[in-house]
């Protein structure tokens, strides 16, 4: 039972091409790039993902713009100009929940087991995934912005500020992606991830994204005022409108930008270590 055989086996049609072993394990960058390539390809080659997400995103935007919009008082500012910056920010949460489902599905289907059995830095696996999902999300933000422009949204400030607003949205997307990574890793099945994503959605509505916070009952206003979506929305809105007072905000644009960046940093610091730990031993 313990003897080694040194039998040579006949080959059928000459020597098959050799499968060579690597000289050293993959580095962090190569690992992240390989795994990001998969997420990007999957997105590009699954047109349903893009079409469904775009249509559902556009649908809600149209409903708020044309159905609820008339009943929401934003003062002299046209509601569409109020709405679109907030809407773009909240679409981060919708895209993020799709990513969480994908991450959970990989656990469910054994794909993550394969990856975790490979001699790779596991943190790089997760980082590559989060970066790729953030890139996909940013593409979605661009589509949403475009739809916003089509339904009448106009920037009031200068173009540089508007571009800065868009870059900020991408940063927020990256920060929230760590939250959704944790969610996907904890949920472990796509269905559970979808269910858990719903828990994050109150953030969308109890915020300044769709309606002015001062139209909410007094007890709810502190909740809305002190959560990340409001800070992010106010930052993006101030930049897009060129003047925070247009959106009924008393603080400066700089205030909102710094506050929203602080929130982003806090989300990454709080959730990235949890995601990494979770990924190391689910």
């Amino acid at each position, binding site marked *: 039972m313990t003897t080694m055989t040194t039998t040579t086996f006949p080959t059928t049609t000459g020597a098959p091409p050799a499968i060579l072993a690597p000289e050293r394990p993959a580095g962090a960058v190569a690992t992240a790039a390989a795994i990001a390539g998969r997420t990007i390809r999957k997105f590009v*080659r699954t047109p349903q993902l893009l079409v469904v997400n775009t249509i559902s995103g556009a649908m809600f935007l149209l409903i708020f713009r044309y159905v609820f919009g008339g009943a929401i008082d934003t003062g002299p500012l046209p509601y569409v100009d109020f709405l679109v910056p907030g809407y773009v920010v909240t679409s981060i949460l919708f895209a993020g929940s799709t990513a969480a489902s994908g991450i959970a599905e990989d656990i469910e289907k054994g794909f993550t087991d394969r990856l975790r059995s490979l001699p790779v830095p596991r943190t790089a696996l997760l980082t590559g995934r989060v970066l790729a999902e953030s890139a996909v999300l940013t593409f979605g933000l661009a589509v949403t912005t475009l739809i916003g422009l089509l339904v009448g949204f106009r920037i009031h400030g200068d173009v540089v500020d508007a571009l800065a607003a868009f870059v900020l949205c991408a940063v927020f997307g990256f920060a929230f992606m760590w939250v959704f990574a944790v969610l996907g890793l904890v949920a472990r099945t796509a269905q559970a991830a979808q269910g858990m994503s719903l828990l994050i959605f109150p953030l969308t509505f109890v915020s300044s994204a769709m309606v002015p916070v001062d139209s909410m009952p007094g007890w709810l206003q502190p909740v809305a005022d002190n959560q990340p979506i409001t800070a992010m929305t106010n930052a993006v809105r101030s930049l897009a409108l060129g003047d925070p007072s247009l959106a009924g905000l008393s603080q400066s644009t700089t205030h909102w930008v710094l506050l929203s960046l602080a929130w982003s940093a806090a989300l990454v610091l709080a959730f990235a270590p949890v995601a990494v730990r979770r990924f190391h031993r689910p």
Partner: protein
Amino acid sequence: MTDATPLVEAHGLTKRFGDVEALAGLDLVAHGGQVVAILGPNGAGKTTFVRSLATLIRPDSGTLRVHGIDAARHPERVRQVIGLAGQYAAVEESMTGRENLAMVARLFGLGRRQAAANARAVLDQMGLTEAGDRLVRTYSGGMRRRLDLGASLVGAPRLLLLDEPTTGLDPRSRNELWDAIRRLVAAGTDVLLTTQYLDEADQLARHIVIVDRGRVIAEGTPAELKSRAGRDVVEVHAHRREDLPRLAAALAPLGAEAPRVDLPTGRVTVPVDEGRAAIAAAVRALDETDIDVDDIGLRRPTLDEVFLALTGAPAGESDDPGDHTHHAPAPAGTDHFDPALAS
């Protein structure tokens, strides 16, 4: 390949999941240069053991070495010598077969060019060259499993871990996968696989380890297991199904255990202590009846019967807490034990 370090060395492995004791002091030493099959019913602890070997979970206690590397202390070094193919085909549907293999090859640490070369070689070895540039979502189940097997070996690991590699495949796909595994072993890769199919272990493995309730209950070559654990068997095929109960009754006195009746094949088997004397006695016993028999013979026990003798339950049945007493064994030579046939 001639080092004497065991391929796998496990001592007293335990692992609990809540109330379930998946590994209950598993001990195993297996050497390379052959296929090692971990054979056992559902819930026996096979998958938990493979996941421990693949460093996906940590046993609660005990020691585990892979190629001499302590899996608890140096999991990252274990990962450099293994390739894993789990129970599901872990491949990306939106990529081609070639892209899947190249991606995993990159993750094994190969440069871009060598990754492409290995992917090509693996496609060839798995008989997927023609399908290599098609998206995996167009592949059949058998093709996906072969691609998954290919992905586990595209970095040329020294030990392949295959967890139930053929579960859910049709017989033809299974044969193709078996051939692929045999080619790998011939080329010098060590393979440890789990299976609940007795014939799969018999077909592929030189070292079979039977696991039940988290422990190793027997191990050896197929021949050793058959001679160690099983009695010789007298087997009689009845010409008419309705004679089966009478046939069993006629054969009962000469058996060392109760006769087993297998309705689908019209067959009665009796484990006996003294084969030659028993077959003569069987012929005499049948002479005194008017039962028509097609065939009567003495043979070595099948692995199914070995399994039954060792565990008290047919393969694939220990999940079922019901009766273990009067199941007929699976017909010899069938692919696997099908509980539906037995009840």
